[in-house]
């Protein structure tokens, strides 16, 4: 475990300006060559990931805005799958950090050219809800409101995945930017000790802590953990046979958005979109003959169950699948509810540490009692 030093950034004009100077400092002092950070779009109606090379083009960093369209872990994988030849600072939320750790273990990302910068997160909005809100207020005002809620530790209307997420701050990062429990004119910055001197020189940090922070965070953890246990148990008890699952997923249109949005589901060509499922016409006729009738398109439930097996052990409950689903299937409950049971067999917690080996790539000589 690293020792962590805690600092405060005093905000001058506003938080965005302060963060801009902080991030620019990192780039100008060559702590990072590039920065992957969410920024407000020029339309003022969205917040998207940007890869910044020129510090002067870093204009509106917004790691607080309650919107994640694509998991930062997916972007990180794109950037580091092959050596980028530069050090990239990557600003991620806790669920994205967990997914990034899983992707490293799956051989799809590399953290050695990366400086991980975590941010506090109490949840984000469903993209549809975000769009409605942003059309009224604009992205900047929405982010400012959100920041105020974040400081007090109270947010409303977050996605169902976020409602059951108890990890509000990741400790697997080198630098962490915190807002929960901070005063109106400050930002908390926690730094791994090895980085302290360089960072201080680059960004004007002053020593300090946020007094109410730890109690607010542990209160949140407890509350969310309680909600999670109740919600998942209720789901496990209500959807306890295949006909009920089939009923719950009756409106699946097999678009595959959930797998495209999932940071863990990394295959370039999914088995469900390859030749294996490119069936002969005669096969459909045979199946219809055997059962009397079949649903078309076929294999929607097979798709979800297979995905549960393929990514279940590494599922970090980020809920990107549910946000991407055009018919709002309760994927952010299905996956954690089943993944929890799968992960329990192997006593595995995804995204916790790079040192924990993926459960399906390892084994014990004697376990699980063969038949």
């Amino acid at each position, binding site marked *: 475990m690293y020792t962590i030093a805690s600092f405060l950034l005093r905000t001058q004009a506003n938080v965005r300006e302060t963060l801009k100077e902080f991030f620019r400092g990192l780039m100008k002092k060559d702590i990072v060559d590039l920065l992957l950070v969410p920024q407000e779009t020029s339309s003022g109606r969205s917040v998207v990931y940007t890869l910044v090379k020129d510090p002067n083009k870093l204009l509106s960093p917004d790691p607080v805005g309650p919107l994640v369209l694509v998991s930062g872990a997916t972007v990180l994988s794109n950037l580091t799958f092959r050596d980028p030849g530069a050090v990239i600072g990557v600003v991620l939320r806790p669920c994205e950090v967990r997914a990034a750790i899983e992707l490293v273990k799956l051989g799809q990302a590399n953290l050695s050219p990366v400086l991980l910068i975590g941010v506090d997160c109490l949840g984000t909005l469903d993209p549809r809800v975000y769009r409605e809100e942003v059309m009224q207020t604009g992205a900047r005002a929405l982010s400012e409101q959100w920041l105020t809620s974040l400081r007090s530790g109270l947010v409303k209307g977050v996605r169902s995945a976020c409602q059951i997420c108890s990890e509000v701050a990741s400790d697997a990062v080198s630098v962490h930017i915190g807002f929960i429990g901070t005063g109106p004119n400050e930002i908390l910055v926690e730094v791994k000790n090895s980085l302290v001197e360089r960072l201080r020189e680059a960004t004007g940090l002053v020593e300090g802590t946020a007094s109410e922070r730890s109690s607010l965070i542990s209160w949140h953890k407890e509350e969310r953990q309680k909600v999670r246990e109740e919600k998942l148990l209720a789901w496990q008890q209500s*959807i306890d046979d*295949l*006909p*009920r699952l089939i009923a719950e997923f009756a409106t699946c249109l097999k678009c595959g958005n959930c797998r495209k949005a999932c940071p863990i589901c990394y295959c370039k060509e999914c088995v469900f979109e390859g030749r294996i499922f490119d069936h002969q016409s005669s096969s459909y006729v045979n199946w219809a003959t055997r059962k009397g009738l079949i*649903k078309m398109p076929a294999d929607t439930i097979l798709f979800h*169950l297979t995905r549960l097996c393929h990514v279940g052990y590494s599922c970090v409950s980020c809920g990107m699948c549910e946000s991407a689903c055009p018919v709002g299937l309760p994927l952010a409950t299905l996956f954690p509810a*089943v993944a929890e049971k799968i992960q329990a067999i192997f006593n595995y917690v995804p995204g916790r540490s790079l040192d924990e080996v993926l459960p399906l790539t390892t*084994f014990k000589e004697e376990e699980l009692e063969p038949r």
Partner: protein
Amino acid sequence: MKQLSVSEKRVAQEFEPKIIAFLCNWCSYVGADLAGTSRIQYPPNIRVIRVMCSGSVDPLYILKPILEGADGVLIAGCHSGDCHYLNGNYKARRRVAMVKTMLEQFGIPGDRIWFSFISASEGRVFADTVRRMVTRLKELGPNSMKAQWEI
């Protein structure tokens, strides 16, 4: 005389479970072969698919027959330390445990899916495994997914 449809005929007869078996090329498939050449009797409820390693059986290939209405799936590989690919059999054991856990959440008994270590010399073990599996599947009754078309 009225022509019975395929499904009506099936109901009319006594329940005979249908098992899809994935047998590893190096051990279990040879074991099954030995059972045959040794004239060891075992129930004919099994449909064998030869695979190069039990570790190559993706969950998809276990789930598809179960959703299609097969009554059981058997995955058999080499004994501890005998895997032709070092440790595919151990990884298969973990994968099968995972699939079983998931299916149990959805009301499919874990006992529909069996994982066994059967070596090339164990014709008798193979026959015995099939016999025990058929007995257990008869207790469980037919897989209800047989009649389910919305999969």
